[in-house]
């Protein structure tokens, strides 16, 4: 396995969309391979439909819990406005995987239009991938499982970037998902993988990988 020096993943969304669960799964996956993971969570007030950001930091050089601005390699966002809010955490050559779901903050008449937010994000981050996580989860009868879809797409990216092998994770993920609705969730997870793969197939992430792995 390559020497994982530092991998920063910022997870954002609206309280209640399951960011904590998503982050914990990612942490457990790396821990099971003996790679230290730190996850800084948002609790309390922010859970009540507020803006949520979770910092996931992985690798042997990591000690501190918070990702500095401009130092995240990957963003997983369950909502478009929250992706735009925290986009400065990403490196300019980082990867943004965003659920195509816009949740208007209640009683905010001046909320920007989602198209405006998307074009802003794309102008900042050329590796932006918008995926139908919520839509897929609703179609498959598990509306709350958009986060599982996003886990699938993240795992596909990690596999593609040779950070972790998906075969290994697929095996593990079954134990980590809750028993209730496990079969459907696994299908949702697979859809997340497949959809992202179709978007990144043929892309080259070598420049980004260089900032994640150690020299030796």
């Amino acid at each position, binding site marked *: 396995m390559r020497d994982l020096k530092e991998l920063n993943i910022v997870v954002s969304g609206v309280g209640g969309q399951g960011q904590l669960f998503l982050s914990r799964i990612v942490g457990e996956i790396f821990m099971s391979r003996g790679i230290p993971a730190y996850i800084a969570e948002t609790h*309390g007030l922010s859970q009540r439909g507020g803006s949520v950001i979770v910092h996931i930091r992985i690798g042997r050089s990591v000690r*501190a819990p918070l990702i500095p601005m401009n130092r995240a390699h990957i963003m997983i966002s369950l909502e478009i406005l929250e992706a735009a809010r925290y986009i400065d955490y990403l490196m300019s050559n980082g990867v943004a995987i965003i659920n195509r779901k816009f949740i208007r903050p209640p009683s905010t008449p001046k909320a920007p239009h989602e198209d405006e937010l998307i074009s802003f994000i794309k102008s900042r981050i050329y590796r932006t991938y918008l995926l139908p996580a919520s839509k897929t989860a609703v179609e498959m009868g598990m509306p709350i499982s958009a986060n599982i879809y996003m886990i699938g797409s993240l795992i596909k990216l990690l596999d593609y970037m040779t950070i972790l092998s998906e075969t290994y994770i697929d095996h593990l993920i079954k134990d980590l998902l809750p028993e209730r609705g496990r079969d459907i969730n696994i299908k949702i997870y697979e859809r997340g993988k497949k959809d992202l793969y179709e978007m990144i197939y043929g892309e080259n992430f070598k420049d980004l990988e260089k900032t994640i792995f150690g020299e030796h």
Partner: protein
Amino acid sequence: MDKIFRKLIDVSEGYALLLGNEAVARGALEAGVEVATAYPGTPSSEIIGSLMEVADLLNIYVEWSVNEKVAFELAWAAALSNKKSITAMKHVGLNVAADALMSSAYTGVSESFVIVSADDPSMWSSQNEQDNRLYSHISYIPVFEPSDPGEAKDLTVKLFDLSSMIKHPMMLRMTTRLSHVRGPVRLGRVERKTSKALFRPEPRYVLVPSNARVNRIDLLKRWEKIKDVINDLEFNKVFGDGKILIIAPGLAFSYVYEIVSKHDLLNKMRVLKLSSINPLPEKIVIEEAVKSEKIIVVEELEPVVENEIRILLNREKINVEVLGKNFVDRAYELTLERVEKIIEELTGLIKISVDIDKEIKKPYIPPRPPVFCPGCPYRPLFYEMRKIISRERLKTVISGDIGCYSLSYYPPYKIQDTIVEMGGSIGLGNGFSTVLKDHVIISVIGDSTFFHAGIPALINSIYNDHPQIVIILDNMSTAMTGHQPSPSTPRDGRKILIEDLVKGIGVKNVFVIDPFDVDSFNKAFHEAIKNLREKHETSVIIARRKCALIAYADMIRDGVEIYPYYVDPEICVGCGLCYNLFACPAITPLENRKAFIDPELCIGCGSCVVSCPYNAIKPLKPFDRKALDKYWF
């Protein structure tokens, strides 16, 4: 992944990914804790919450107490009776328990007593940023800080040992970024031995002045002994080599160490990780200070360590430049960027750059403050109250309190004029009632907060005659912090009825209403105003309905079919009352301004129906709402 903490009880090796708070709980278990208490408060709640998960397996006593003082006293009594105990609270909770804290240093203990204070730099969910390490200086209770979740576990075990050995309480200070960070924790064996409870009366437990004077001298002697022991604490440790010394207590160490090693500076400077904050490990500080040309203290919030170091160096006549709070701002939590900048400025050894294209204009990103959940019983009540106050132009002062309902400060309800501290609503209400005679004084408080600190203020309001309208929001739970029980939560047939209690105090006008029934609130509220204006009497309105998150979870568990509501587009005129003023997150405007209910978010509570003057909001399928009442009450 459910109940991981519980499953780990039988695991005694390897690493687990634990939340800092779970790590503290794990440490307590490995040390053999037998009694654990708390009043919930972010960011501390998961410590006792985790222990609650395993209480039955390990036969330990774990309790959510009515407030921090009571929690502290219960655990303290256990430690006076040969039982290892722990109590945990958020930083401002320790203010509530401070009276007990001071006395506990005087009595000492007969077995381990560990006090955890979880501070909240940057005030993510608190009213202030107080640095509870300073409590150590007035109480003579030693305070320690870990640098990450893994160390939080080990340090907790150590504090149980120290407390048992010295027979003195020990304080562990956590912060949000320790408590709510998951990290690798090395597991040890969970201690399953139980000890026999034993209380031996001693004069030192009776703090009458004649005994307290003796205790004071003993306390100072004990403090000297603690200083001695702490000199050998293995958690205080030096890394690197060089003439510059960075002293970094607790979490600050993690930031400093990452930056220093990232820039390969460990051959140019030393980093002293401090885990014992007060007293300082004088030996190691002096040894390192004399080898230094410059000392930089990097710590969050107040200059607690810095000041002690200055005093120590002065006393020892060590002449080294000390840099600290003149470079590291007091306000807000540290970040890697802040620490990197400090090291750049103070050492000149690194150069940092940030690559963000500022040319690309960021669109306006509106804030997304937390909101009442879909189905929250408070929403219709605040909606109605705002309507009445605006329509009738009532001259009010609304004194709010700490809980989910604090959110009604934000638009569109804009209902609270003050929110200060636990129980402060009725307390300030007493004062406003005294001096603002021409105003309608309204205090808004939740059930758990009322039991915690509201009762004495209400007694004062009745006995000393400060009439006000007190609205007690009874959702039968301590909802904000994660649904810990409150005395209004039914438990083994016990439950304290708020109406019985307030009647007992002498409140003559008591209304119990369902907050979904806005007409009944309207009626009670108007009567209360009349009581206030005409009879100068206090009224208490108890708005009772369970937290929607609990009701909904129970319905899901029982497999109840839930039908979301929808907006009939033929009827909706797009007035926006429902999405702008009632403001349930499940209701959003479409492009044509008509309302749309997101079936992903709607829990079918139906409370929004009243907000539509055109009756456009309907259930997807007709169902018997009354049949679901058992989940809501």
